[in-house]
């Protein structure tokens, strides 16, 4: 039995790590929801777009090459240069800021004061659009992303735990990096939204567009800012997940892994995203480990949602979400 216990511990540890990766995606959702009450369906596609752009820039791919070739003939594909990862990340960030500006200019600005579900729908439109553009721009084949993050089993932990338990734990280096980055991100974002003037303005915008306008908060500025930050978070998530599984369409589906996290942690809470991620990560892995074999496995997808649902029944606003104000 102690064997089982050790295995369970390993599963829990890995669940925690997986949870951090989910949380990275969830963070992007939280930011935009907090700042505009928008449930940004496009967050997953943004991660994909960011990762594709990063790879494209690193490899010196010509954007829209396929389209250009099809329209004008010719066979251009690459500029023939190779850009170091760090510089490429900066350039990609520039692209994400540009994207944020476009979103604000062409979408959000025209939808001030609309109901949340309409804004949600607009982000769906955006997701389609962005997906199409990403594919046209960089092609839909799978790309390898390597910005130099370590990957694979962490030998030190393996050895250390082997000496203690007689069984070496498997912890992925990438997960460790992700954890560190996530921790930094969360700390920075919490500080920003809770203690700065812009953070306060951001929350004000989420509550009431009109009132925010009336006190002189420029929605346009706030939105560009928030979408840029969300773009940055998407880029980080894209790098992590892209390193793990290659950069490809499915990257946009990681959003689905983030939703239960979001629900459980609360749509408006940055720390909630992390805590939610950890709970979901551990919960689903443990369930798969303990119960999965009895019911035929592959329970992770739905179990995450059911777990979140159970939490919600007791706390309808999620663990850390702002209380839903019910007054007449």
């Amino acid at each position: 039995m102690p064997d089982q216990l050790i295995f369970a511990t390993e599963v829990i540890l890995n669940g925690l790590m997986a949870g951090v990766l989910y949380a990275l995606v969830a963070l992007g959702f939280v930011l935009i929801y907090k700042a505009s009450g928008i449930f940004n369906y496009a967050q997953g596609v943004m991660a994909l777009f960011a990762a594709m752009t990063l790879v494209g820039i690193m490899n010196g791919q010509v954007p829209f090459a396929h389209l250009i070739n099809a329209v004008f003939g010719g066979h251009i594909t690459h500029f023939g240069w190779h850009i170091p990862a760090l510089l490429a990340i900066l350039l990609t960030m520039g692209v994400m800021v540009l994207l944020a500006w476009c979103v604000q200019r062409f979408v959000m600005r025209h939808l001030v004061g609309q109901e949340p579900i309409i804004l949600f729908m607009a982000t769906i439109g955006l997701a389609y659009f962005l997906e199409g553009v990403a594919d046209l721009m960089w092609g839909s084949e799978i790309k390898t992303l390597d910005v130099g993050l370590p990957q694979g089993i962490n030998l030190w932990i393996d050895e250390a735990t082997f000496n203690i338990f007689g069984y070496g734990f498997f912890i992925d280096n990438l997960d460790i990096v992700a954890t560190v980055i996530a921790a930094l991100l969360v700390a920075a974002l919490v500080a920003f939204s809770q203690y700065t003037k812009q953070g306060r303005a951001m929350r004000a915008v989420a509550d009431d567009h009109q009132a925010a306008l009336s006190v002189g908060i420029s929605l346009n500025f706030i939105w560009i800012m928030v979408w840029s930050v969300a773009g940055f978070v998407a880029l980080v998530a894209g790098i992590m997940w892209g390193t793990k599984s290659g950069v490809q369409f499915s990257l946009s589906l990681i959003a689905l892994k983030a939703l239960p996290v979001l629900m459980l942690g609360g749509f408006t809470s940055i720390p909630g995203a992390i805590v939610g991620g950890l709970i979901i990560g551990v919960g689903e892995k443990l369930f798969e480990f303990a119960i999965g074999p009895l019911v035929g496995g592959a329970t992770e997808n739905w179990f995450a949602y059911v777990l979140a649902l159970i939490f919600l029944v007791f706390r309808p606003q999620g663990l850390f979400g702002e209380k839903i104000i019910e007054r007449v």
Partner: protein
Amino acid sequence: DLVFPSLSYRTGPYAAGGIPFADGYADYFTLLNERDGGIGGVMAKVIECETGYNTEKGVECYESTKGEGALIYQPLSTGITYQLIPKTTADDIPMHTMGYGRTSAKNGKVFSHTFNYPANYWDGASGAINYLLDENGGDLSGKKIALVYHNSAYGKEPIRTLEELSKKHGFELAALPVDHPGQEQKSQWLQIRRDKPDYVLMWGWGVMNQVAIQEAANIRFPMENFIGIWWSGAEHDVMPAGDAANGYKALTFHNVGTDYPLYDDLKTHVIDAGKAAGAGDQVGTVLYNRGLYAAMLAAEAAKKAQEIHGTADINASQMRDGMEALEMTEEKMTELGLPNFGPTFSVTCENHGGDALVGVTQWDAANKAWTLISEFKPTDGEVIGALIEEDSAAYAAENNIEPACN
């Protein structure tokens, strides 16, 4: 014209697999047109229709192309296949599902218009076990084999066969489902790490392949002992894992590389002439070859049909007859400039599935190339045959089909 619709998927989650296949399929017909002036003097026309691997779009594609005189369908998706089986039968158009689709369609007495030569999933399962038997001197008893599979109808295909085979050969089978899309497989691979199976088989698709190979590398599972089905054995599946993927194996029913005379023709008539499909950067990849192979088989069947019916301008019904009489021999392939490109087989009414020969390829990360490491070898017809009989009988009963050969 001889119309060959190509239900391709160059977009969506599986685009990476769909693009090379569609390119290969189109390029082969372009070659025939450019070099030979078509098939038997009639030009071939490929109508490409994007399905995005989506069943509804597949239906739309089928309905919109069937009126153009389509000779043969390659639906390239198990879901679309299932819908088209009754429809094509009713419309008297043959369908070729090569290495996918409904396995029991091998039984031509029930599935008159569906062909799945040269090999199917159950052949794949058996082929993998046979390969392992060879490796282990014919004895697998006491070995542990894990199956990591996409949790869908496709992924579940080999389970029945493997279960039967495990009874027969005495190995222990553990099935580990991975839910779509398969980006998170920590649980499964931690379990593999704990249970230490001797071999891992994989029925994966899309991103699941890349993640599985990466995770296998992460837990340092020996790649030589990791074998994927042919849909888990393309370049893009192994590339993201880099050097760590070296030694990974995959099943196949056609050969790899570009080392064939036909590719020289292809280069002069198609690629250098700027007539290549898509971006033209897929030539020689595993799935490109598969598309090319599918096109070659279709063209050969068309030739056969022309021969049988004595007319160059065949229709779909005649094409079906051609497919049912198809015979692939080594001489024929050599003549086509593709020596040993695929297994030899012949099709009959009773057997729409060919001779079920399966080979194994291995990835060489240093050279970024696949090599065929095991020739095309027969599979366990005894076990598979029984399963096919059972499943097709059930289908026949459900749909009031009187199994017969006409």
